[in-house]
């Protein structure tokens, strides 16, 4: 059974259609990358899947309609790492990562020792243990991204939505983050849906790519199927060459 099944999903902002009747299914442990130009609707689709914007159509998580679930139950199943997360400067890293436990707590409850242990595990996993007592305002870009991912990990959801997880990172840190997400989905069968700008990275990590344009998914399939010079020229207006790397991977090279 599919983990995520979106059918005919549309998102409107003040009447403007940002996502237009999108169908998308994702299996347990599968990684789907959303690619496409700015304004194609990738972020809005992720928001609909995370339940943070109203949408038309249906989204089912593990066969249950997302709209029929209480907000808190849905948040236990789906975690979102936004493109520009808000990190309150004065909050400590541990307090921030603990926010990921929110959907597992009663409305007015506070975290137990078990919750703190889960948050610490998430930090260990992301190599962020030594950041525990630091304040968010003191962190570097790479540290911030790791801490945000640790919060999502502490949420222990079966679906992980990532909006440009590597946008703020250099190549090395970007790869570290993607490697870690890859390990998690293999170990815990987490389904990953990630909006990714870097087409080569998207091709290397995702099982499937969904190319979006004008709010619709216009091409979907394996990296080799979706990433053609023609499709990229057509939808991004970018001039690129598609090269096969030494390991058989698809490499997208911009041309002048």
């Amino acid at each position, binding site marked *: 059974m599919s983990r995520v099944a979106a059918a005919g999903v549309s998102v409107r902002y003040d009447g403007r259609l940002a996502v237009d009747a999108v169908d998308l299914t994702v299996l347990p442990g599968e990684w789907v990358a959303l690619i496409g130009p700015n304004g194609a609707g990738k972020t809005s689709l992720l928001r609909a899947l995370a*339940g943070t914007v109203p949408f038309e159509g249906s989204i089912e998580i593990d066969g249950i309609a997302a709209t029929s679930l209480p907000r*808190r139950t849905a948040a236990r199943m789906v975690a979102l790492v936004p493109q520009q997360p808000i990190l309150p400067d004065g909050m400590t890293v541990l307090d921030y990562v603990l926010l990921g436990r929110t959907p597992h707590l009663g409305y007015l409850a506070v975290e137990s020792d078990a919750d703190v242990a889960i948050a610490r595990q998430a930090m260990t996993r992301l190599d962020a243990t030594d950041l525990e007592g630091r*304040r968010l305002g003191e962190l570097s870009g790479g540290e911030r991204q790791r801490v945000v991912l640790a919060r999502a990990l502490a949420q222990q959801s079966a679906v992980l939505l990532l909006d440009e997880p590597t946008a703020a990172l250099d190549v090395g840190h970007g790869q570290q983050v993607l490697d870690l997400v890859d390990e998690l989905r293999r170990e815990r069968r987490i389904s990953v849906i990630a909006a990714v700008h870097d087409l080569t990275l998207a091709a290397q990590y995702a099982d499937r790519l969904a190319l979006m344009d004008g709010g619709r998914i216009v091409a979907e399939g394996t990296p080799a199927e979706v990433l053609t010079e023609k499709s990229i020229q057509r939808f991004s207006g970018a001039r690129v060459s598609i090269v096969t790397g030494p390991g058989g991977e698809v490499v997208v090279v911009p041309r002048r």
Partner: protein
Amino acid sequence: MGALAAGVLIGPAALDPGPVLLELLDRLPFVDVDSGLDARGAAIVWELRLPRAILGALVGATLSVAGGAYQGVFRNPLADPYLLGVAAGAGLGATLVIVTIGSGSALVPIAAFAGAIAAVAVAYALGSAAGGRRSGVTLILAGVAVAAFLTAAQTFVQQHNADSIREVYSWILGRLGTAGWSEVAVMAPYAAISIVVIIFHRRLLDVLAVGEEEARALGVRPERVRAAVVIAATLGTAGAVSVSGLIGFVGIVVPHTVRLLVGASYRWILPLSVVGGAAFLVLADLVARSALGPAEIPIGVVTAFVGGPFFLVILRTSRRSLS
């Protein structure tokens, strides 16, 4: 506790601290000591100083925790408990009674309370209708508009009744001078409800600090948290205003001082604001009634006069962030 003790021990009537403490001990169950105070001295302790100190503590704690909660729920460092029109509504209610009946009327606190609740209810309804359910900013703007309207109405009424301007003005500056046990009894339940509800929401205010969208993604409904906090803070603030008038500055300066001292988590800010607010207002009241004794300075003047420079010192010496 120290501030409360000082509030009871110090006053314009010269009473030695020793007998005052003994007098307090004497009232504890199973304790029987002779304080040596005469009936007048005992009355000063029991009917004047103690209720006044307790009322100051309740009002200070409530205004501080309400201000801290508003700063969290609206993610706005300038928020104070009067943000959504409590002060303007209470001011208009009190002014109407003072000019028609007189400042001694028992209706003044009731009218102030009703005015405060009504102002927030109107601001909340207007703000929600204009999209405030999804964003706290609309609520703040509705509050500003309602406050401006009610303040204009209050000024108009005041100008047309120039003979009672002094009484209105003294009410607006806030005072604990009329405090007795009956005021304590009025205020205690509002303080209790307000403080308990707000402190129970401390963790959710930390969740709101990451923004409404992420809060939603974490399974929290920001509008629900906002409604609960606004109702609790409004009840507490309206109660405080009805017994002590408009005491400014406490609700903004105490939570920020706590924030600068202990960090940005509401788990610490809110409980410590209760303690800090209580101590601050009791001490401010002590200054208000002792500094120029026997004349009293309006307590609102003292909170700003003492609190302002104190806050600037903290602001200058703390390395912590306000956000």
